[in-house]
């Protein structure tokens, strides 16, 4: 049990950090730092789960924290770094539709719109202000992740966008309702499989290796609209 005011302060501080990492993910061009930022964001979520565990004492939260720490801060970033070495691409310079500055602007607007939506329409869903805030930040984080998916060119960056979305959902679930733990595990497994699959697919699209492209284009007859 922590003092309520301190507890609120800690949680609010962590929210600010999460939004900061989200802004960095949207604008970052270097892929290595992108993965590190993602790891940091997941770490913040894990810390938040631990703080909630200390406050409420639900064992479930502790498990979620450990799972997040093991999979999202350690395993997935390591795996992505490994993939990056193989595809010999260092940076993702291209932004489609949105420049980094306008992305930030749009995400600020997104947060505001989600806030308006939740206070006006879904008011009865959220018991107190803290949960409302979590709802807003969780959904906004998911939408920001979606923005990364459609505004970035490289598949590997899109993958990080998807992971950010998932972090938003995790944040939302931490406060709204602790799902049965088995379901949390299954979701993480599902996440892992998506990451592995899209990383394998990224070899085909992102790879800078010429011979790989030649090998892919050999099957010319399937290439038609």
């Amino acid at each position, binding site marked *: 049990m922590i003092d309520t005011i301190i507890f609120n302060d800690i949680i609010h501080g962590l929210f600010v950090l999460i939004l900061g990492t989200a802004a960095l993910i949207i604008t970052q061009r270097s892929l290595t730092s992108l993965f590190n930022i993602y790891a940091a964001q997941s770490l913040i979520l894990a810390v938040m789960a631990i703080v909630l565990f200390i406050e409420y004492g639900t064992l479930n939260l502790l498990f979620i924290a450990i799972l997040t720490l093991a999979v999202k801060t350690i395993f997935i970033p390591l795996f992505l770094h490994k993939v990056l070495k193989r595809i010999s691409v260092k940076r993702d310079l291209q932004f489609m539709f949105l420049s980094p500055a306008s992305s930030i602007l749009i995400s600020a607007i997104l947060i505001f719109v989600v806030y308006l939506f939740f206070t006006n329409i879904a008011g009865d869903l959220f018991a107190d202000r803290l949960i409302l805030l979590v709802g807003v930040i*969780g959904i906004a984080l*998911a939408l920001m992740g979606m923005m990364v998916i459609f505004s970035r060119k490289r598949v590997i960056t899109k993958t990080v966008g998807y992971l950010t979305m998932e972090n938003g959902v995790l944040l939302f679930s931490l406060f709204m309702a602790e799902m049965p733990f088995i379901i949390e595990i*299954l979701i993480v497994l599902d996440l892992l499989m998506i990451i592995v699959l899209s990383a394998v697919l990224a070899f085909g*699209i992102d790879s800078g290796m010429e011979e790989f492209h030649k090998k892919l284009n050999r099957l010319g007859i*399937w290439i*038609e609209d």
Partner: protein
Amino acid sequence: MIDLTMLAYCIPGLLLVLALIFSGRNKFPANDAVLNTFSIIHAFYLLGLTFVVLFGAKLPVYFMEGRYFAIDRLSLYEILIATIVFCLSAIYARGYIRDLLNIGEIERTNTRLFYGAFNLLFTVIVLSFLANNVALYWIFLELTTLLSALLIIILKARENITASLKYVFIASSAMLFSFIGIIILYALNRDQIADGNLNWDTLLAIAPSLPGTAFGIAFILLFIGFGAKSGLVPFHTWLPIAHSRAPSVVSALLSGVLLNIGIYGILRLNAVATQTSVGDNLKVFLIVAGIISILVPAFCLAARTNSKKFIAFSSIEHMGLLVLGIGLSSPAVLFWVLFHMLGHSLSKTLLFFSAGIFHRQYESNKYFQIKNAFKLQPLASWGLILGSLSVLGVPLFPIFLSKLNILAGLADFSLAGLVIVLLLLFIIASSFGYYLVRAFNSKEDETELKVYNTPKSMKWPIVFIIVILLVLGLYMPGGLADLLNGIVNDLGF
């Protein structure tokens, strides 16, 4: 005895995958004939099992303490459709995949990957229908995305990878919104019953006491994910590309089985929604979503030049029609929605199988490559024509009955809506006519094309589906009508 049904459903698929993983690269036969024979046996075994449960068991049956899995009439009916399509696909794959392997479009080393994913996809689809829990259903739905993405990239062209990635990203991101919906649903649920659970039957039971607005938000979030999986506008963009790039046998599965899973979720969800206080608003929401999903393909179809893409757009239209029917949520319409699912799955399987033969013959999916079709591939030509007629809902085909009755339900709801939908269906029908006339009316070519010798295993499924469609269009078996009525009853309409 019945407790083992669950295991009986999953064992063959899991066994095959384990065998494939743990046998080294060479120990287990990488021979496609062996793996295909296994797939055919697997499919027919499950079909038999489904009939045994259908006639032998007293439904619904619940499994495990938390009732995480259940068999009721709706899930059994969906499994029945899925297994029929799988039986046909497994037979069709025998000749189709062998030929792709022979000309090197699929590498030999990937045969195991293909059949492993094929059989596991089958198991996962059955499990997603058996899951009685929304969260479990969500997870199996995600797994179907992954496995079908694997089946799409089995042809190693760059475009296939793009198509597959598009599918994975759109479907999975939309499914994350669904997951937020699940969390909200769980939070609402926990207020009603201690501990809370997300079982479909519990949800149906406590539906009247769920708070309206919050449930509405959860419903729309869940609808985003399920809708994306069944290719509803505006989440349909992955569908034409994925369907046209995938090998035809996989396209048939995507269209005939996988789209149904999303619709199944929406159907269950709507059964809960009609009993809440926002039921009427959500009804209108579904009807509008359905009409939009008919509208977009109506204007896309005429410009298509690729047969498989053309068929894929028609799938979007049919999913729109199904959601429209679900939105109308009257018992009579729902009966025909369920019947429409069967008719649509069979017709789309027929169309994609025929398109697959055309692709082998002309090495292209474009209509302007089709020459002397009736001379070279008479069966596939008739398959394409009869399949198109069936999809359009021409009398003598089952879709005629279901389309007519869904539209009759719409007329009761809104006359303006009916006029709009009829107009759109008219545009769609003319696009079909336009496409087929252009495809089959091409001038005789001087240069003689070499006839593609279609294997028997690719012909029989086509003949079988044509016969079944004609029979279903003229005569509805009493057992089927009872089953459908029972489902509508189970859903509480």
